[in-house]
């Protein structure tokens, strides 16, 4: 049940209507039931898996809270981490590691036949595992009180707007909202929800899916048949596809949650306006980057143990962040390249103590370089193999011939992406995420009318599924 489907909005209308009629305790039970139904629509067999993860972490947290000594607390947090990550590894990475081991053994002539293990990937497994882990770690650190209501905890894990593609909400932020009555719906919440839902749908239906049409073609055909402008525009198209897709999903999640009285974490803050890699990660998939910072980078030592250790911690965090996206070496390499870039940037910026001077044309150059380096890393992220990356880089460095496809792609990028980027420029200048909510209503009406008409008249030639569902 995708957010851009009729089915979802029919489902949401029923859920929201019944929700509005219930008292708080029953609201939680209703939302839990609705969330399990939502998840079951992807594949009902994995309902048992999400229930298992929920029960496992609920029980572990109770044990941590009840433990009288540090050793027991450590045992139960270790149990929660190992068991949760084991489940994630089995479903997400086991097939990959079996295949890679088989390749290695074949290369060493230790086995003649390749081994394959195909395990179905449950939707959103990386997201709900990280939700659950954030809770048990927070309980262990005594950052959050233990949740004694199984219904509340199960709802925190499975709350449908954020269940399959985030944002990854912290127990410290979402659990307290589950555990007490939400504010009554008012105009401010309705206004915020409407803005988030409409902009999210626009980003998905108009920007992401139309860009997917171009990007998929460039990454589908043999690179040798392409010219450099086609590859370059294909990479730009993918950059806006993944942004529109994921930021769109997060925005709709936040909007629907706002209509039900919940505040979810902002996940994107105009990432392509970043001026350096650190700035980019402060704007892109914020819920994941802060999760990795708080639960991996800082526990590894963060930047407290000297420059060398800091660099190591950065690289390890980004490599694992890459692997989180999927079982493929290209994702690991993508994380690694971002890690190296962060290290180089840190080194150039003087150990993170200062930044580059950012004024006038320098700022423009800095933005342009950062944007293109981000796009270059997207090539690694999107490519099917390293071979494809090398071939595309080769084309980029040699075959500069303007083609009919390039003209079309450029025109479509200008038509679908430039207006949105102009809007984001305005937001950036105002320094507000939801600046539109503070302007006079006729302007907002005009803006929404454009979004609705674009969605109605310029849908993509083919509909693409949300990319992050695969993660």
């Amino acid at each position, binding site marked *: 049940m995708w957010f851009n489907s009729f*089915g979802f909005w029919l489902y949401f209308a029923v859920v929201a209507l019944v929700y509005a009629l219930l008292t708080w305790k029953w609201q939680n039970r209703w939302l839990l039931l609705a969330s399990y139904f939502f998840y079951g629509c992807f594949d009902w067999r994995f309902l048992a898996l999400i229930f298992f993860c929920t029960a496992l972490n609920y029980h572990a947290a109770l044990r941590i809270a009840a433990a009288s000594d540090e050793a027991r607390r450590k045992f139960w947090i270790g149990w929660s981490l190992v068991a949760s990550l084991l489940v994630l590894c089995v479903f997400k990475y086991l097939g990959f590691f079996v295949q890679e081991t088989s390749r290695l053994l074949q290369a060493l002539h230790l086995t003649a036949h390749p081994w394959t293990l195909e395990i179905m990937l449950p939707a959103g497994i990386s997201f709900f595992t990280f939700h659950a882990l954030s809770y048990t770690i927070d309980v262990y650190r005594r950052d959050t009180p233990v949740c004694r209501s199984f219904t509340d905890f199960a709802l925190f894990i499975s709350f449908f707007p954020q269940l399959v593609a985030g944002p990854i909400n912290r127990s410290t932020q979402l659990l307290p909202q589950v555990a007490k009555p939400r504010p009554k719906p008012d*105009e401010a919440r309705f206004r915020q929800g409407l803005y988030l839902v409409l902009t999210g749908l626009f980003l998905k239906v108009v920007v992401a899916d139309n860009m997917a049409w171009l990007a998929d073609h460039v990454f589908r*055909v043999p690179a040798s048949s392409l010219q450099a402008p086609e590859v370059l525009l294909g990479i730009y198209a993918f950059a806006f596809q993944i942004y529109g897709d994921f930021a769109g999903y997060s925005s709709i999640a936040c909007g629907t949650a706002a209509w039900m009285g919940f505040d979810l974490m902002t996940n994107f803050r105009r990432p392509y306006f970043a001026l350096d890699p650190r700035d980019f990660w402060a704007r892109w998939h914020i819920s994941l980057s802060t999760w990795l910072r708080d639960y991996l980078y800082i526990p590894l030592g963060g930047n407290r143990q000297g420059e060398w250790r800091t660099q190591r911690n950065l690289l390890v965090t980004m490599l694992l962040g890459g692997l989180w996206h999927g079982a493929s070496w290209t994702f690991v390499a993508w994380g690694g390249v971002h890690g190296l870039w962060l290290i180089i940037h840190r080194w150039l910026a003087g150990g993170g103590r200062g930044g580059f001077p950012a004024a006038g044309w320098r700022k423009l150059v800095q933005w342009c370089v950062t944007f293109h380096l981000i796009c270059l890393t997207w090539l690694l992220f999107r490519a099917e193999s390293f071979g494809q990356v090398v071939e595309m880089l080769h084309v980029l460095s040699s075959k500069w011939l303007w083609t*009919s496809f390039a003209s079309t792609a450029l025109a479509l990028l200008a038509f679908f992406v430039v207006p949105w980027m102009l809007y984001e420029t305005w937001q950036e200048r105002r320094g507000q995420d939801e600046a539109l909510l503070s302007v006079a209503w006729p302007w907002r009406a005009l803006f929404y009318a454009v979004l609705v008409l674009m969605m109605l008249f310029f849908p993509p030639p083919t509909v693409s599924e949300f990319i992050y569902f695969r993660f």
Partner: protein
Amino acid sequence: MKNEFKILLCLACLLLVLEAGARVFETLLSKDVQHLRELPAQAEKLRAASQDAFKILVLGNSLARCGVDAPLLTKELKQQLQREVVVAVMHPDGSRVEEWAYGYRRFFQQAGAVPDVVLLITGRVHLTDQLKSVSDMGAFYVSGQDTGFFAQSSLHGIEDTSRFWVARASALFAHADRVQPLVFYRFVPGYDATAQGINQSASRALTAGSPHAAKPLTCQTLAFFLDGSKPSGARFLIASAPMPEPYSLPVEVLETATRAGALVVDAGKTLALPVERFPDRYHLDDPGAETFTRFLLPPILNLAKGRP
């Protein structure tokens, strides 16, 4: 009134105005819509014809529009049969068996405008089951009488059902897909060639990688179409249109047509025309259409004279 409700009201008004506009000016959107809206007039031509007249309906898509020379067909049939001949046409672009079956039933059979012969012009892939757009079916082709059956047999899940009913209720939604091509084909440089290239690469990838590519061909809609038309007395002549490369209709199509008593002319295989007759490598030009129409005359005359 609160501001957000004013905004929603404005949006609703805008959509209502556009809905009215879509209903009033829909025929300006494309020649195809114009043709679809003229179908009742085509049916009227058949209904108004005298008892003694020979009535033929040319059914198909752009292959029929470009491949059959209707004036020549009328003239030749009139000359050979020595009686009044009425030719009606239904050939929406990009249509296939689903649109033909339900469109024929809605505009002709259920409207009491049954031809003596239905000349069905098809390509290799148009008669096997593959529903393309439930929105178009809801907006243009499926009659109220057929809705129940169509819903049961072809609408799978909430998404299909919603699209079908929204398109049925709203001309704006039904025509929304026509705006993008109208704008892009006109204003985006190279869009035509790019769209063709992308669609080809996508379809190659689908055939190469998808398990559905190996799915056996079925002809349930064709069977429904032919069997459902039997009681009306119309006889069917199914003719494959010539292409630059000769081809045969799928065995499943031939079997279904034969079982239902339709006559099949495999012109795609037997009528070889030079490649110059296909200016866009797909549709026939005027001389090509004349040749193909003359090729179809003998079997049509046989049907008109009641010969098997």
